[in-house]
């Protein structure tokens, strides 16, 4: 149904569909009941109204049942979120720099690119930093987003199991060309990634390593 391409996508969609499904049932329930009452108890059909002040049992029921349902939604949302925070220790660490109105990516060995190239099925951690105003790093197909600040080291991680090219958008309003601040994640087969990485590293005159290099 939706384009999904990361380890989080299916869970986010599932929680969303769970809440949306329950909501739809209740919404239809409310609307149908309301329309039914409006027709059944119209002035024509029911000229004499009956006063009903309230009903404690009903009040307790329609407080308690939504409460339980809401708690389940809260729980599933929290569980999914916790996965997003559990960054694997072996994740490839890539620094993302945002400025008005572009993204740039820096690999551990110092290689810089304007598209985010990552190998398929590997955990990737991105460290976010802004050079000016606030931005937000958003990959809709991965269901991930994080604000990017100049004074704060936000990060997030993902693992994509599908080779392909996915949009990166800026989701925090940042001025004139906010809507043009797109880049992309290119998810590649491991061997393609290795070849690409060796080539760009060679061009930059550095070792093609994804382990953080100490600055000389």
């Amino acid at each position: 149904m939706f384009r999904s391409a990361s380890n989080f996508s299916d869970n986010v969609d599932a929680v969303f569909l769970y809440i949306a499904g329950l909501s739809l049932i209740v919404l239809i329930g409310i609307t149908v009941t309301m329309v039914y009452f409006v027709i059944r108890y119209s002035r024509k059909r029911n000229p004499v109204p009956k006063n009903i002040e309230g009903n404690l049992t009903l009040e307790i029921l329609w407080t308690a049942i939504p409460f339980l349902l809401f708690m389940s939604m809260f729980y599933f949302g929290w569980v999914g979120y916790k996965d997003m925070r559990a960054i694997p220790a072996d994740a490839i660490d890539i620094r993302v720099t945002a400025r008005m109105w572009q993204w740039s990516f820096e690999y551990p060995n110092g290689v810089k690119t304007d598209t985010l190239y990552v190998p398929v099925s590997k955990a990737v951690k991105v460290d976010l930093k802004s050079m000016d105003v606030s931005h937000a790093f958003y990959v809709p197909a991965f269901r991930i987003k994080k604000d990017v600040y100049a004074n704060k080291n936000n990060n997030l991680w993902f693992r994509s199991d599908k080779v392909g090219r996915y949009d990166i958008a800026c989701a925090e309003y940042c001025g004139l060309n906010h809507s043009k601040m797109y880049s992309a994640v290119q998810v590649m087969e491991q061997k393609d990634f290795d070849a690409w990485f060796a080539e760009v590293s060679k061009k930059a005159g550095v070792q093609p390593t994804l382990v953080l290099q100490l600055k000389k």
Partner: protein
Amino acid sequence: MVNVAGPADKIEPSFLEVSTNKYKGILSWLLTVDHKRIGILYLFSMMTFFSVAVVFGFLIRLELIAPGRTIMGPQMYNQLFTLHGIIMIFLFIIPGLPAVFGNFFLPIMIGAKDVIFPRINLFSWYLFITGGLIAVISTMLPGGSADTGWTFYVPYSVRTTTNVIPALAAAFILGFSSILTGLNFVTTVHRMRAPGMTWFKMPLFVWGLYATAWVQILATPIIGITLALVIVERFLGVGIFDPALGGDPVLYQHLFWIYSHPAVYIMIIPAMGIVSEIIPVFARRTIFGYRFIAFSSLAIALFGSLVWAHHMFTAGMSDTAQFVFSFLTYAVSIPSAIKIFNWVSTMYKGSIQLDPPFLYVLSFIFQFSIGGFTGLMLGALSVNIHLQDTSFVVAHFHYVMFGGTGFGIFAAMHYWFPKMFGRMYNKKVATWAWAITTIGYNALYFPMFIMGYLGMPRRYYDYLPEFQPYHVASTIGSWILILGLIIMFTNLIVGMRRGKKAPANPWGGATLEWTTQSPPILENFHTIPTIEKGPYDYSQFEIPAAKEAQ
């Protein structure tokens, strides 16, 4: 129609003819301390602002009908959505129900001759107008109007070269207007109730205004201070929020939302009050669960003050904060759910007359429910991460603020119109306007949910071609909506000038405003009434026969 003959039908000069001062004409309005005239001053100023912001909204939608440039450049677009937000929030929907209908009806509904501080009441209208004018003037100064979004997020708002300071000053002044109105209402409800008007005999609209007034008093000063700090930062270069100066932008977001989230409840609680007034009158039976509805207003006001950081789930707060704010967000949904169930139950075994105010209430319940349900989706942390700052959020809050409060205001206008102006609008035309606005409204905002989930970020001047079908549907919806609004307002304005004379109690309401003549006299009552019956006790009325809208 129910027409209860009584002394109130003996027409005396109304507040429209008799003023509180020695002046005639425009000055008798500008210097009035009559709560009803002040309510009408607010009504007309607010509707003017609303119309302007609708035009901006129309232009925004028109620009978005196709990717790339359609009718304007990105700078113009950014300024328009900023102005649309500032005007709609600060000049239309926050003052909408309390300042217009609260001012006009709160004193009458509790059996008082006016609010407790009539001069402060007029002063708060002047603050409102001053704030509004500064906002208007700021758009004409060199540099152009602000392009920050209505949220004024730092650091962008301290870096942009547009006129942010006047816009902030406007919002600052408008805040004082809101605080004074809140103060006036709380004190009026505590001190001015007529004999026998106990707390649980108060109409639910009064309960809503009362809960709202506390939020206005307690939350608004925080936005005032925050905006003042931004002004200090811009003028004096003191680092408070801007990281370049050593400040923290997330601190700004916290302070901004500590006010602006409760402000959402300032907007919606009085609208819920309207709904609770209208359903019993047109169903001819008492409200279901009076106390639950009354207390849920207070519960919303209380919990609503504790959920602000759910606007910041992607800001990088601690996991503990994320957990707590997500939990509280679900907690605040419960009182709203209670209200919806009670409203629908109030229709059970009623004798329902589908007049225009009731129709608007039906739309309110449907649309506000969608707003609420999508709020549940946004409250779940993992889903929020995906949806934050997409058009899904735009659709969500428009469903609450416009589909809810906006339609609540339309319902209130159609319900109280005959009381305020002593004339009746054309009900058939009003019914058509209701149908068209409801269809247009949903066509405009529903597609935004879909494209939001598909990844369309908000505040985007341009977009990827894959989103175009949704944008086209939404823009066409905006045309239908505006057509409906034009019909609605034309009908009301024509009704105001040439409508049939309205009796004192055209709907058969049991609250006190319907015991006064239409329009009410200056100071509302000759003698302060003593209250014995509840606000939704219709036993004194004959049940009017079924009748088609006329």
